[in-house]
């Protein structure tokens, strides 16, 4: 029998002694001391949260705990995945920035300390700092002028330095390096440099062969900050020149390079994963990439209408005011969606969608402007000649779906949409946070009835569970599939839900930490519209005016 290992026991009982249990000791004398989450209570909480800013680019605090994190560790790293550098590869206009931001958002939500490093940001920063001009050939992966070579070198080495520092000093687990990296030599030197530091390197190469997709990406680029004040046509020429110069230099990745890489073709239409043996985290990212879609639509959030008592306990129907609210909400959302669609069709930038005779016919029945995608859908169902429409919602880029919680008043809030023939889905995962014993109690009442629990709740409102209740963390974990499905939606989606579920969804889309999420507010007089940008998501709050 080996000696008892604890030093304390040896001090008490003498060196080398053994503790023999003679009789049970009453009470929880060897209680669990570590919680599933080391408390995030030291995190300073801002009094007022500016809810309009996407937090995906802000640094994470040392003791940051993210919404979907299953547990926390001292090192700040999860899944025994080690440190990983993801290197984006691809020509301009291949959505590299979008991909790196999306990966950052998702992995951070999972609890990974991720940061993306964008070459375009570094360049802009350098311009701001030096008030200088960018050398003409800087945008080539292989500049030829002395200034161009120097400028490029300075930016890239600053990035490498920052990424190294992120891994070494900021408990970083995952860095995403967003630059061209279209040359074999560039890639192998990154692999070597970080391999030496025991950081695994995974390349994600984005290839766009679909001309429609490419055009859309170019259109996005020429409306970016880089071309502020330019004539669109001139901007396009300039950007295409940038693209052409690099196209000529581009060395597409192949297995011969012996690197681990994911080839991501036409925004996820096809993915190939090569030599991936980096574990769970990378597979999880590939999983995420399978669900990421090029979003044309917006996500709308709205509360449900009012009912007579407005209590959790009763599953009530809407009252008169609630019905009126629903009607106004329906008109407002349809109007917004239609207006955006009309603009998109007018704008030469988007894919031209000529409404055919049939679609005009369709249009008279549906409150939404129909496009070719929805027509194709009806045509192909059950016909062996065609691919079958995917059984999920939101597959087409002109889809519009309403998700509601399975409670009567939320479902009823969508009734006018359903009457108009729009898909309304009750989603179990949108069931509001289960309040347990504190259902329908005010803060005052809770404080009075459950004083010690209330105190603990205030310390960590995100993870604390009242008796029988769910915590926000529970809610987030059970809603993860919805997040991925939301990423999968190409078109518009309106989510009518309880404040607790809206907080979690909004928290993901706008990258809030778990100390902020429980304190976000959503009221009945506002519709939230989130639109997706490659670099950040944008919020628009639209008043819902009751007559």
């Amino acid at each position: 029998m080996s000696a008892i290992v604890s030093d304390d026991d040896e001090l008490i009982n003498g060196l080398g002694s053994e503790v023999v249990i003679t009789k049970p000791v009453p009470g929880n004398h060897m209680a669990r001391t570590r919680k599933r989450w080391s408390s995030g209570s030291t995190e300073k909480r801002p009094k007022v949260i500016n809810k309009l800013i996407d937090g995906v680019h802000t640094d994470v605090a040392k003791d940051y705990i993210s919404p979907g994190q299953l547990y926390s560790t001292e090192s700040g790293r999860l899944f025994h995945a080690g440190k990983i550098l993801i290197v984006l590869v691809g020509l301009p206009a291949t959505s590299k920035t979008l991909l790196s931001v999306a990966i950052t958002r998702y992995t951070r939500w999972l609890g990974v300390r991720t940061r993306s490093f964008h070459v375009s940001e570094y360049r802009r920063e350098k311009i701001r700092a030096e008030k200088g001009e960018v050398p003409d050939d800087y945008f080539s992966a292989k500049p030829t002028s002395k200034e161009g070579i120097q400028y490029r070198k300075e930016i890239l080495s600053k990035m490498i330095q920052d990424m190294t520092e992120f891994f070494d000093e900021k408990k970083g687990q995952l860095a995403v390096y967003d630059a061209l990296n279209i040359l074999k030599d560039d890639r192998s030197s990154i692999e070597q440099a970080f391999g030496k530091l025991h950081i695994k390197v995974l390349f994600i190469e984005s290839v766009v062969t679909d001309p429609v997709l490419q055009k859309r990406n170019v259109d996005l680029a020429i409306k970016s900050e880089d071309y502020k004040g330019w004539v669109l046509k001139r901007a396009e020429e300039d950007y295409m020149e940038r693209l052409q110069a690099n196209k000529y230099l581009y060395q597409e990745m192949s297995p011969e390079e012996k690197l681990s890489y994911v080839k991501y073709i036409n925004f996820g239409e096809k993915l190939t994963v090569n030599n991936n043996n980096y574990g769970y985290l990378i597979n999880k990212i590939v999983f995420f990439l399978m669900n990421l879609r090029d979003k044309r639509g917006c996500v709308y959030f709205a509360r449900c209408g009012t009912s007579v008592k407005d209590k959790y306990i009763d599953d009530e129907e809407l009252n008169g005011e609630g019905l009126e609210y629903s009607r106004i909400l329906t008109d407002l959302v349809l109007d917004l969606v239609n207006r955006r669609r009309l603009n998109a069709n007018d704008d030469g930038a988007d894919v031209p969608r000529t409404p055919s005779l049939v679609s005009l016919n369709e249009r008279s029945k549906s409150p939404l402007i129909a496009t070719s995608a929805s027509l194709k859908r009806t045509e192909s169902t059950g016909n062996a000649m065609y691919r079958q429409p995917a059984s999920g919602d939101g597959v087409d880029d002109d889809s519009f779906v309403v998700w509601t919680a399975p409670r009567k008043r939320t479902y009823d809030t969508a009734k006018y949409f359903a009457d108009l023939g729009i898909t309304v889905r009750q989603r179990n995962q949108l069931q509001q946070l289960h309040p347990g014993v504190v259902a329908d109690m005010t803060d005052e009442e809770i404080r009075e009835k459950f004083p010690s629990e209330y105190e603990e709740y205030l310390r960590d409102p995100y993870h604390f569970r009242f008796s029988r209740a769910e915590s926000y963390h529970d809610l987030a974990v059970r809603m993860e599939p919805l997040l991925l499905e939301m990423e999968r939606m190409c078109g518009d989606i309106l989510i009518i839900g309880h404040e607790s579920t809206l907080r979690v969804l909004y928290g993901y889309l706008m990258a809030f930490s778990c100390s902020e999420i429980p304190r976000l507010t959503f009221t009945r007089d506002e519709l939230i519209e989130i639109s997706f940008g490659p670099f950040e998501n944008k919020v628009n709050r639209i008043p819902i005016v009751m007559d």
Partner: protein
Amino acid sequence: MPVYTVSNVQNIRVCVVMVGLPARGKSFISQKIVRYLSWLSIQAKCFNVGNYRRQHAGAEQPNADFFDFGNKEAYKIRQHAVTMAVEDMMRWFNEKGGVVAILDATNSTSERREWILKLCRENAIEPMFLESWCDDQDLILRNISEVKTTSPDYQGIDPDVATKDFLERISKYESVYEPLDEEVDKDKTFVRLINVAQQVIINRIETYLESRIVFYVMNLHIRPRSIWLSRHGESIYNVEKKIGGDSHLSPRGLQYASKLPELVKRSAGDVDLTVWTSTLVRTGETAQHLPYKQLQWKALDELDAGVCDGMTYEEIEEIYPEDFKARDDNKYEYRYRGGESYRDVVIRLEPIIMELERQENILIITHQAVLRCIYAYFMNVPQEESPWMSIPLHTLIKLEPRAYGTNVTRIKANIPAVSTYKEKGTSQVGESDLNSGNSRSVLTSAPELNEQQEST
């Protein structure tokens, strides 16, 4: 109770059509997918065409000639078997509300695949083809030796004869095999696994559930390996009949820890393995003498009993009588005040399961509830039963995942320990006679049992 782990299965139908030569791990992958989805409470079923051929088409143990594509008579029988399988599958979708069906067959010609594609599409389903392509001879040979010993086609047949016949059968298929083509099939939904997961090609995945299946399959490998499971040695709290806590081992528990290296060695021989423990003291102490690489996982920590942590069952019954009863009524869903339910544990274990699938030989030293969940996953134990399984202390369990099921072996340390098993409806711990009541011993009532008790 809502299904927590995956979304919107209403109106979703996924049909996975396996593709590949014999001995490429197709059945293994199919079985795995079914297990994984069932573990996540999603209706899934595998339709194995070989079974239809054996049971309904009257070809129980045919030899290789049967699989000759020139053999008209046999081809008819095979066609009949696949038709029955597909018809059953559609019936299962339409009448039983099935969500994920797997058509497990070689489907090696594009003609056959087009035929299935047509049938599926007429039922408004876009199938997902899942091909396992492999030219790694080692891997194939290992699979062959596995098939010849476990496939019903070769039951009771001399292994050498079986191997020879099976190789011949494979060559018949090779002569007509047309792998999925990235160009020709570019409009279909398909996944190609090249040499397990050395390269994975994913084409036109269009639903969340499909992506989830692909994600899972990417984590699988078909190299043979074993997983050993053990609870920590008897702890001081076990002796005191308390649940949870973070106590040290009792002297008998420490004895188990000392004996564990020998037990593992006896079962594993010289193979290398990695030890996973939880972050609680008692699993670390149990692993302390093991001469292998060790990793700690917070996700392996015991089910959190919340306010009941550190109490005896008797105390819980006294202080929280309603909770005590509620837990007995639905142990899987019951969540301790401020703690976790079995379902919560399953959700947090998912990354562990994925990582476990990716790894080779692993020894997991963890806790009763966590072990029940892991065991339930490998052995396909339904969730009404899994929380009630008895997993005794001081016992090493060996799992060997195989194409047609998982083999279980248990190795008892023969070091006495208290029983921590609590039957339904009582606050007393300890197992009563097996035939007397609700007790479910993991090793006597679990499916796919293959008990080889060690005696020392």
